[in-house]
């Protein structure tokens, strides 16, 4: 352990020195970031309280359904942290210069593994933790629980939950690398992606929120009691369910019944972490060496074929074609990009198929329809923001230190930016439009065009926001797109997107509610308030987009 402390000590010194405020501009940047973080933490706190009030008081769904919804949210969190950790651990454990350096020194591979494991965990989860803390503070104060309960939830439920997910991610990664040397990387990774998609599909099939709401609401007004028999047995063995069950019993002030779920969570975290460390000690160095030879074999077989195929599709003979072709090749040759892209696309497809079934015919309350419409719109923007954060924010950083070639070539910065942004913008707009189409297909088909216009403007502004912030917080030395997307600048960008989303919601919710009320009361389709909101949203989006586009170009012109 002495080695671990020694290395961690110098990592900490390096971190402090890197973040040391030594100039006025850095002070302003840090101050600005802190204000945004604080504002967002406050926003998250009030969001939690408002949502709880809406679900429990306005909708009267009861404590059981609330915690079942939380269980679904926790499942999505679990998968996100898990996949994120697999991809980040892949590059930090196997591809970083730091591990290469440490392996040339007499440092035990287990120690390197432990250091990188915690490095990944806290690096990619720090912003998430801040938001979750604020949300849980809102949760605890809403139910008038004391501060010790918050500490109990964080230490004995939230942290083990995150460690569980991250440990499992590292275990999966070690197994992938181990198996890949035997069966080939493409086969193993392909199988894993299919397994994840199938698991997600079955989870949503088994949980079926709509069926659960129907079954629980049939017991109204006794909706606060525990309807465990409605939950599929296999779901009860999942960490997200332990977490939500523990919260449910805490809120019911029945601590004794919350203990089993908490103990399951803690035990699973300890077991998974122990397995990860043991496997790391046994396989890490061995697989680290294998990884290098694996990479070489893959190249020999594949490179010329891919090159010939792309040559037929796009030439290299103009700056536009050359940059697009280079970006496509780099994207599809980076396993972390391809895996993350495939999983996100699969999630979007699942979302599309789920929302396409929501029909206006199922509801009689205009306010509820307005809320569902707005929620779907916001969810659409959230997906656009996630895609932008993941694929637009790192777009300049990923040029890396090789950017000298483009910067010293006779290519205008503005042209470069347009070439790089246009294909991504187009793809994100297309995804947004498709999501919007399927979400409104049965719910509000008469609003599809209006929603599409909003989606286009929002996509434009969110993409530009991510581009601009990505340039302002550029990190040419970081090769891992996921680490770039979870850096301080990226977190700040996501918070900006959330604030923008809140503004959008405020602008659209009242005109939409009014619109559906008139339809239900007098079959009258009233649009003028919606048009006004769309107009404001469009102007605001263009304004935000233009600011960050110009800022990005300006910052791209600074010394390289």
């Amino acid at each position: 352990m002495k080695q671990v402390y020694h290395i961690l000590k110098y990592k900490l010194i390096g971190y402090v020195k890197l973040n040391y405020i030594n100039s006025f501009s850095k002070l302003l940047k840090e101050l600005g970031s802190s204000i945004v973080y604080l504002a967002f933490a406050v926003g998250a706190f009030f969001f939690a309280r408002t949502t709880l009030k809406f679900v429990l008081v306005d909708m009267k769904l009861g404590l059981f359904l609330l915690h079942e919804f939380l269980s679904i949210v926790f499942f999505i969190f679990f998968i996100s942290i898990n996949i994120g950790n697999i991809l980040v651990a892949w590059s930090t454990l196997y591809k970083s210069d730091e591990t290469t350096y440490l392996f040339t020194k007499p440092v035990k591979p287990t120690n390197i593994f432990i250091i990188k494991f915690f490095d990944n965990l806290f690096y990619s989860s720090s912003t998430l933790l801040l938001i979750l803390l604020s949300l849980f503070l809102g949760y605890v104060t809403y139910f008038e629980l004391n501060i010790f309960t918050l500490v109990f939830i964080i230490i004995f439920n939230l942290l083990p939950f995150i460690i569980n997910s991250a440990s499992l991610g590292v275990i999966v990664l070690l197994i992938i690398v181990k198996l890949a040397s035997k069966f080939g990387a493409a086969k193993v990774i392909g199988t894993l992606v299919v397994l994840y998609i199938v698991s997600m599909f079955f989870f949503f099939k088994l949980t079926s929120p709509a069926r659960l709401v129907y079954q629980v609401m049939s017991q109204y007004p006794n909706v606060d009691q525990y309807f465990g028999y409605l939950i599929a047995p296999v779901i009860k063995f999942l960490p997200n369910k332990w977490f939500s069950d523990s919260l449910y019993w805490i809120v019911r002030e029945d601590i004794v019944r919350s203990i089993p779920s908490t103990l399951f969570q803690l035990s699973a975290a300890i077991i998974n972490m122990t397995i990860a460390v043991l496997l790391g000690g046994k396989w890490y160095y061995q697989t680290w060496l294998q990884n290098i030879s694996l990479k070489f074999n893959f190249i020999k077989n594949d490179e010329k074929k891919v090159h010939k195929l792309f040559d037929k599709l796009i030439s290299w003979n103009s700056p536009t074609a050359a940059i697009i072709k280079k970006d496509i090749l780099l994207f599809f040759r980076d396993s972390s990009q391809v895996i993350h892209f495939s999983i996100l696309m699969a999630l979007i497809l699942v979302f599309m198929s789920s929302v396409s079934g929501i029909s206006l015919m199922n509801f009689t309350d205009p306010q509820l329809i307005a809320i569902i419409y707005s929620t779907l719109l916001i969810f659409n923007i959230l997906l656009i923001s996630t895609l932008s954060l993941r694929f637009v924010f790192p777009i300049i950083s990923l040029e890396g230190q090789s950017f000298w070639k483009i910067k010293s070539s006779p290519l205008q910065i503005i042209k470069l930016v347009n070439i790089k942004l246009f294909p991504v913008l187009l793809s994100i707009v297309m995804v947004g439009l498709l999501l919007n189409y399927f979400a409104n297909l049965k719910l509000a088909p008469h609003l599809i065009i209006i929603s599409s216009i909003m989606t286009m403007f929002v996509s434009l502004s969110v993409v530009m926001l991510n581009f601009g912030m990505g340039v302002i917080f550029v990190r040419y030395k970081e090769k891992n797109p996921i680490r770039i997307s979870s850096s301080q600048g990226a977190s700040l960008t996501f918070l900006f997107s959330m604030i923008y989303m809140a503004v959008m919601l405020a602008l659209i919710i009242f005109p939409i509610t009014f619109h559906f009320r008139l339809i239900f009361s007098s079959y009258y389709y009233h649009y003028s308030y919606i048009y006004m909101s769309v107009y404001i949203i469009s102007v605001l989006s263009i304004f935000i987009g233009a600011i960050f586009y110009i800022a990005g170009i300006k910052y791209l012109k600074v010394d390289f």
Partner: protein
Amino acid sequence: MLKLTSLTKKFDNFTAVDNIDLTINKGELFGFLGPNGAGKTTTIKMMVGLYSLSSGSIHLDGINAVEDHLSVKRMVGYVPDQPFLYDKLTGLEFLLFSSGLYNIDKETSKKKIDYLIDLLKIGNWVNKRTEEYSQGMRQRITIASALLHDPKIIVIDEPMVGLDPQSAHIIKAVFKQMCSEGTTIFMSTHSLNVVEEICTRVGIINLGKIIFDDNIQKLEELKKHHDQNIEELFIELTKEE
């Protein structure tokens, strides 16, 4: 050909390049010497458009490198001190990408790449991803990418780092030939032997200021006059007070 006038670069309170003047003529092979941190790379980065100028000007064939930077960039071939390449591209793809940035048509690009592959002996591994390359391989690909568009001036920062003797020999021969054909070369280097062997003019920079700028014969005279070899003379000239 290349004219640097009162060129200055400041980073906050630190002056990296301090009011330097240099004129380099067509066909000259200019060796730019200086100890670590003297301002060589900073000067070069300003010349190729990677750094802004704090003051002064750079002209290439009478064209201002700040006002019309695209025209100047078309005339310059740049080789950086660290040959960073896109790891996931092959060497050939990097060369094709580079030719695209200069709008070179397909036929010309193909001929030129074939010629450079042959000249720099990179045919054996040009179809492998650059992440597999050694420093010397990367260096040769970078040099090839700088020569693709037939630049009027080649600006090179430490060209011999990481090259094996065979590669260094090839590069030196290529540079000499290019100069004889009228290309100007501005080469920053630590290798005093290379300067003696191939350069026609030498400039020495220390603490951001030019302390020597003359032809190679003058340097030889100085050596004889002080009865020193070039290494001793360089240490003497760049000695900090």
